[in-house]
């Protein structure tokens, strides 16, 4: 194979909501088995971009390829097939509030596999332990703190060991130790399972730790896309400003 197909490939993506232009020509490639972090200001369209990749939103124009297949024209049924490759962590966790933590995390397994209950139990408790949660399995989301809910969302996203995991701000609102845990988890998933990850983050420090590539979204475009070390040398004014807020403090 002379040229590898990227796991995710976004081409010239446009999206507006009414008059409001959010994405204006996004291009982004994520190679298989790598971690790409998307940085960008609040409201810059990071979540909107991620929702296009998993087909929750349809673009006004442009293409999204997942393993070489354009997912934009797919209908619901075909999208289901593509979505089985994914796990997604929502910015607001998006747990099913009528279900317990255990039911939430086991949900993808029940829907898409015929595992025995004992095996399901093992996997669920395993993933909950990875995100540092114990003794919450029988609680309902409403009984948890925001950070705990986020971690349940993480466990649910990775419980089927998907090929691609989309993390929308996985560590926002978590304490530093848990943040470290989650960073380690993303790294381990990449090293042990070859998972491809796309991570939206505001946390420059953890981005530099987990990322193979960092893409910077500004004004509806990816204005910089480079490995972390090179990004620090970027001359783009918004990127410089963004990074200086963190590196400046150290």
């Amino acid at each position: 194979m002379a040229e590898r197909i990227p796991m995710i490939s976004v081409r010239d993506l446009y999206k507006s909501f009414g008059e409001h232009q959010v994405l204006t020509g996004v291009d982004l490639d994520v190679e298989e088995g790598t971690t790409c972090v998307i940085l960008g200001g609040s409201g810059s369209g990071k979540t909107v971009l991620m929702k296009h990749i998993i087909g929750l939103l349809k673009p006004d124009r442009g293409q999204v390829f997942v393993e070489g297949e354009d997912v934009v024209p797919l209908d619901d049924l075909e999208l289901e097939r593509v979505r089985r490759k994914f796990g997604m962590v929502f910015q607001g966790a998006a747990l099913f509030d009528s279900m317990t933590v255990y039911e939430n995390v086991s949900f993808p397994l029940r829907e898409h596999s015929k595992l025995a209950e004992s095996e399901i139990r093992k996997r669920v408790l395993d993933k909950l332990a990875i995100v540092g949660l114990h003794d919450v399995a029988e609680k309902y989301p409403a009984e948890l703190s925001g950070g705990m809910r986020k971690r349940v969302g993480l466990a649910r996203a990775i419980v089927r060991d998907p090929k691609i995991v989309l993390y929308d701000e996985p560590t926002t609102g978590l304490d530093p130790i848990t943040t470290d845990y989650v960073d380690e988890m993303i790294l381990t998933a990449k090293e042990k399972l070859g998972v491809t990850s796309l991570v939206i983050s505001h946390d420059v420090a953890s981005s530099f730790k987990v990322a193979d590539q960092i893409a910077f979204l500004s004004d509806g475009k990816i204005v910089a896309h480079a490995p972390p070390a090179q990004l620090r040398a970027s001359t783009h004014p918004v990127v410089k400003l963004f990074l200086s807020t963190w590196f400046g403090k150290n």
Partner: protein
Amino acid sequence: MTDEGQRPPGRAAALTAAVAWVGERAIAGVEAFLGVVSLGGSVARWMVRPPFRLENLFAQFDFVGVGSVLIVALTGLFTGMVFATQSWSAFERFGAESLVGPTVAITITRELAPVLSALMITMRAGSATCTELGTMRVTEQVDALETMAVSPVQYLLVPRVLAGLLMGPLLAMLFDTAGIFGGFAVAVLIKGLSVGTFLLRTQDIVGPDDVTEGLVKSAVFGLVVMLIACYRGYYASGGAKGVGQATTNAMVTSAVSVFILDYLLGLLFH
């Protein structure tokens, strides 16, 4: 209309506003109608596709059907009693008290049972369904389902709509029973009509067609009110306020639809 801007807001402006308001309403109405129909189509498509989640279905049967038993029975009982009391005082004038039984039975089976039990389903199950789905939508739980490669239409809407379709007629039958019993209680136990007269006259005049009409209507109503609740909730937006609005909308649309459909289906039967 050219010098609209210069004139003080007067009758013409008020008229324009009124016409615009009616126009907007009409367009919104047509949009909603098409939306409900197309959602109904996709519910039908997902209904016949595996997996069949019986557990979800029975949970909805329980919620929509079993949960409405008491309220429907009570409504039916008192409707029958009120109706018997009123028709007694009317029929008494020309000595036709024996017709109270069949009058109550026909009106209840054909009209009151389907309409009133559909309104009870709307109030109880429809409102809860709309709020629940709306909340799931605005908190991204619906999106989460989709990303897990589970169709929210199949997982959430199919069981709810089916519950409306199947529980509608069952609840109407319960209403029939309670209502006719209410009529019996008033005519026989209170007013002193003989048991034989009440039963014989009722059996003579009320036929299976009356019951069929009622059951067909109540199946359609059950389907429609749950579909409307699902439609409004599923497409809710704008946070808690939006969910509240969706529910209000669903209640109003459902109730009006029931009355309109009752008339249209009535034409079909007679």
